[in-house]
């Protein structure tokens, strides 16, 4: 039985996948690599079959990322689990370090680390996300913004048995949602070292930007319908809940402003308007608070980081 399972959900990206798989193998000892092919229509299947020593699962019908990751969770056998996107890279040895740390703290449910922003072909650039890694009870912080890079988080299988699998109805926010649910029950640990390299999305790859408006509305729905109904949030005081909503709103508003500016720079006014149209669904004071924070110089997160990717 392998100790750790790395779950890689992939869809029609055979040129990037082998690099991700190689990095996953080198990331630790006693690792099982589970590749879930989300009904790719190209040569992904052949590429995977040529690689030995991976647990290859092929979906016949496209389930989107969260659905495919869930299938990976079912197919995996490790006690510790982590996801890796098919275009990201795990750093060598990074997994062993996290496993060791998590072993020392049997109460903790999850450990995460930093991500290096890479360029479009996945080579490391200079800056790290998140700059500092809060630890312990981070439930309320996590409600405000997602500072956990998806591929950096390593969690115990038994966490899923108490919080459930990924929610496939919120594609793109599904990882954040899982972290929130885990953090609602378990203390979270972190290693303040880079563990993965993120590939930066470019406009042509259609990764983050085109969906900013959509993601924020999903996030708002999830915040209201699910997160605020978690036992932890329900028993909290009204004030705490309101503060969480404000922090969430502010970060989402910042994200939307940033994305809409980016869209405008690229000459896509329609996209820019669509991003701005979600703003009224957030707390009405969030725009004011952004200005306030800028003027007062209260240290805020780097603008594009609100959703934990860009």
């Amino acid at each position: 039985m392998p100790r750790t399972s790395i779950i890689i959900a992939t869809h029609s990206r055979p040129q990037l996948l082998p690099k991700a798989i190689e990095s996953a193998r080198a990331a630790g000892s006693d690792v099982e690599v589970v590749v879930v092919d989300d009904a790719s229509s190209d040569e992904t299947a052949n590429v995977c079959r040529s690689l030995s020593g991976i647990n290859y699962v092929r979906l016949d019908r496209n389930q989107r990322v969260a659905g495919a990751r869930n299938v990976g969770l079912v197919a995996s056998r490790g006690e510790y689990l982590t996801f890796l996107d098919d275009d990201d890279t795990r750093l060598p040895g990074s997994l062993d370090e996290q496993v060791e740390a998590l072993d020392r703290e049997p109460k903790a449910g999850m450990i995460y680390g930093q991500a290096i922003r890479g360029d479009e072909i996945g080579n490391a650039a200079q800056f790290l996300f998140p700059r500092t890694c809060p630890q312990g009870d981070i439930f309320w912080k996590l409600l405000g913004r997602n500072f956990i890079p998806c591929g950096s988080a390593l969690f115990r299988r038994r966490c899923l048995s108490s919080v459930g699998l990924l929610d496939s109805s919120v594609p793109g926010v599904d990882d954040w949602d899982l972290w929130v649910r885990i953090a609602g029950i378990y203390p979270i640990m972190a290693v303040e070292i880079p563990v993965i390299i993120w590939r930066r999305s470019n406009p042509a790859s259609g990764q983050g930007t085109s969906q900013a408006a959509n993601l924020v509305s999903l996030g708002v729905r999830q915040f209201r319908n699910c997160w605020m109904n978690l036992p932890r949030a329900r028993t909290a005081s009204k004030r705490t809940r309101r503060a969480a909503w404000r922090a969430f709103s502010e970060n989402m508003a910042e994200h939307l402003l940033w994305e809409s500016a980016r869209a405008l720079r690229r000459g896509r006014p329609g996209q820019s308007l669509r991003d701005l149209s979600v703003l009224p669904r957030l707390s009405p004071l969030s725009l004011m608070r952004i200005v306030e924070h800028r003027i007062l110089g209260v240290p805020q997160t780097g603008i594009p980081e609100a959703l934990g990717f860009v």
Partner: protein
Amino acid sequence: MVTISVIIPTHDRPHLLPRAVESARTAGSNVEIIVVDDASTDDTAEVCRGLKNITYVRLERNLGVAGARNVGIMNSTGKYIAFLDDDDLRLPGSLDAQAALMDQNPEAGFVCGAMIMADQEYQPTGEVFLPNSSGDVFWDLMELDFPVMPLSTLIRKECFLRLGLLNEKLLGIDDWDILTRIAEIYSVLVVEEPMGVYRKPTPSSAQGSSWQSAQLRRAARHQLQLLKLPRAREAGPRKRREIRRRTINRIADTLLWSAAHGFRLRESRAVCANILGALRLNPLRAARPGAYKKLAKQLFVKRAIGT
């Protein structure tokens, strides 16, 4: 070596659960029983501690049946998966019989069987439901013309790895959704013997039928998604329209029929919900006088008894 994993999601029913667990145990050898406690707030946890040889998983937040079943699938080690509700029963030997049949037919995705209907005290009401066809049942399932319930069904675990897990957002119809998706690419086996006992809800037990109208309308809505499956797409718009029309009519008829039934039980709220539901689905169908024959008959019979 475990071959069959029986997944029993439970929520606040410690008085019924042990009976369901026992029935699953006698239904097969090489069976592992996984009880997923969907954030019960009563003494379910203690009751489960008293049950020997089960895998007990406790969810800290209520996820609903589908979410709990998914967690059960993740914890399962068997080759076949059976879902059982905490108030239903499996019949002795039924799992072994179905597993043997599945072993012989590796191309089959799931096997279903006859179901005995019972009242709240597990006394058979005399009704037995049996699926009317086997093999390729994709269109029957799509049309809601295939009586199948999870409690009489054994599913190959591989199906979940090829088609994805249950959809947590489909309250009450997650099983119909997954079985239809499985039937799209796998063949289906039927055992004619009864495999399980279904404890029929009454409107007052708050178990289901009070939401029947909502559930069937949800099914009607979700069918539009299922009609996007590749096989339905290939069948062409004409076939899809025909299927759609028949389903809507069937649902409207079912709602009116159970409105008539509810009338006898003096469940006026359920009756109204059902008739309104039928009208919303297909006003023309519900406006057909014949549809109310049963309702009128109930009314008449009741009057006759009254006088």
